[in-house]
């Protein structure tokens, strides 16, 4: 029996959903991408916020959006900055122009960096990381 105590595993930084963003996080938990649309002018916006910056309406509704998009930019993270991500390095984070008209930043899995280029199609996927929180990631879009 060992008497040494392993140090506590570093905790993953988790989002704290707000009154504005709760529907987005609830959507991810249900494996759906829910984006905020202005109820007055119909424009989509992300990240969630109280007022439409186009027409200033405070009325909005979250609607399910398609999961495909195209690469806008990316980085390969070698230095973890947060200890939780040390095991995962190096990891790619892709910034994707979603077909729905917003941009989403998320880790990219199962695609080599050498295969990346601006405009390459990717698809959003879902990783439950806790009872309440599911985080997005990207994979290759087989349909594209």
């Amino acid at each position, binding site marked *: 029996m060992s008497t040494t105590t392993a140090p506590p595993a570093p905790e993953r*930084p988790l989002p*704290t*959903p707000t009154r504005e963003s709760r529907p987005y996080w609830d959507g991810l938990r249900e494996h759906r991408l829910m984006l905020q649309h202005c109820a007055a002018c119909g424009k989509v916006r992300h*990240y969630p916020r109280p007022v439409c910056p186009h027409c200033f309406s405070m009325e909005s509704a979250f609607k399910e959006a398609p999961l495909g998009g195209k690469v806008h*930019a990316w980085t390969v*993270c070698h230095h973890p*900055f947060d200890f939780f991500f040390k095991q995962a390095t*190096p990891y790619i984070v892709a910034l994707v122009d979603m077909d729905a008209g917003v941009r989403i*930043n998320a880790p990219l899995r199962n695609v080599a960096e050498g295969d990346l280029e601006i405009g390459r199609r990717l698809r959003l996927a879902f990783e439950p990381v806790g009872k309440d929180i599911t985080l*997005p990631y990207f994979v290759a879009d087989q349909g594209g």
Partner: protein
Amino acid sequence: MTHPLRDKAAVSGIGETAYTRGTSKSALALQLEASLAAIADAGLSPRDIDGVVPYFPGGGIAEDFIANLGLPDLTLSAFVPMGGATCVAALQMAAMAVATGVCKNVLIAVGRTGYSGARVSTRLQQFPQFALAAEFEAPIGMFAPAQLYAQGARRHMELYGTTPRHFAEVAVTMRRHAILNGNVVMNKPLSVEEHHASRMISDPFRLFDCSLESDGGAAVIVSAADTARSLKQPLVTIMGVAEGHPESPASIAQRPDLLEFGLVKAAARAFPMAGVGPKDMDVAEIYDCFTFTVLRQLEILGFCKTGEGGPFVMDGRIGLGGELPINTHGGLLSQGHVVGLNHVIELVRQLRGAAGKAQIEDAEMGLVTGYGDMGDGSLAIMRRAA
């Protein structure tokens, strides 16, 4: 029509602490030490300071300055919470204060324990302006400016053919300048090969593409130009100064164009206010949080076209004796990271003719930029007055 702020304010005093990695002093103590140096440089007494703009968050509020410097009658206290764009943007606020008579001498001070205190990885989540990044980006592994800016750098490389060699030229030139300056964190030569061999932080940024985590303090005094004329130092006036905020200011990821940021708007205001253009600059102090951000700012400022920032910095053009010497003190990449107030100090030093081994002959006019908080920008154009 001449802008009402043009040449109405001057930087009358400059002060710095040692730039180090490791200090027992608090960020507040560093701010105050630099402040006393700047006040003495101007030939003023602490009692003459009636406006104060401390760095936030960075240990120091108006009450601290009143208590420590015995300020008898502070008429303006303010924060300018724009990250790395703070110091140059604070020049605008100070210029407005002295030009309108609200203040006579405004103290702008920064103190940072970026090495001994809170490190870059944890700072992001503490700032209210980064709440969105903390909610949406930190959980997916994007914490630090190095990661968030790296995506823009990658896009620039993909679109315009910008290369690591271009980045290296910035890093190596800043180091060469730092070595001429006695007060720096990094004082050993850096080669292009060493830059390319340094460890990857967030691709395309390697270690030597990133500014330093360091400890230090810096301060400047802004006085009305008429007041400054009768003070101790040669008169260096602020010809034009402005701040600018990008679309989607709290998240680079949501910005329609990752490569457009607040400096675009600041430049569109500061150059006309000064009545001069980029070609008139003898020296430029460019906020170098990363090598890449220097390239992109040169494009935005109009020294070259978008996409040409990489080739522009080559062939010794940004070194001493080059067409546009940049960061003649070593910058944030090699001197130390005090949120760019060291860039302001170096510009003033150059225009006073007091930059020592890095002095540019007959430097009469120059600019300094600030860049921070995910894309806020600021620009000041200064000249040595006759």
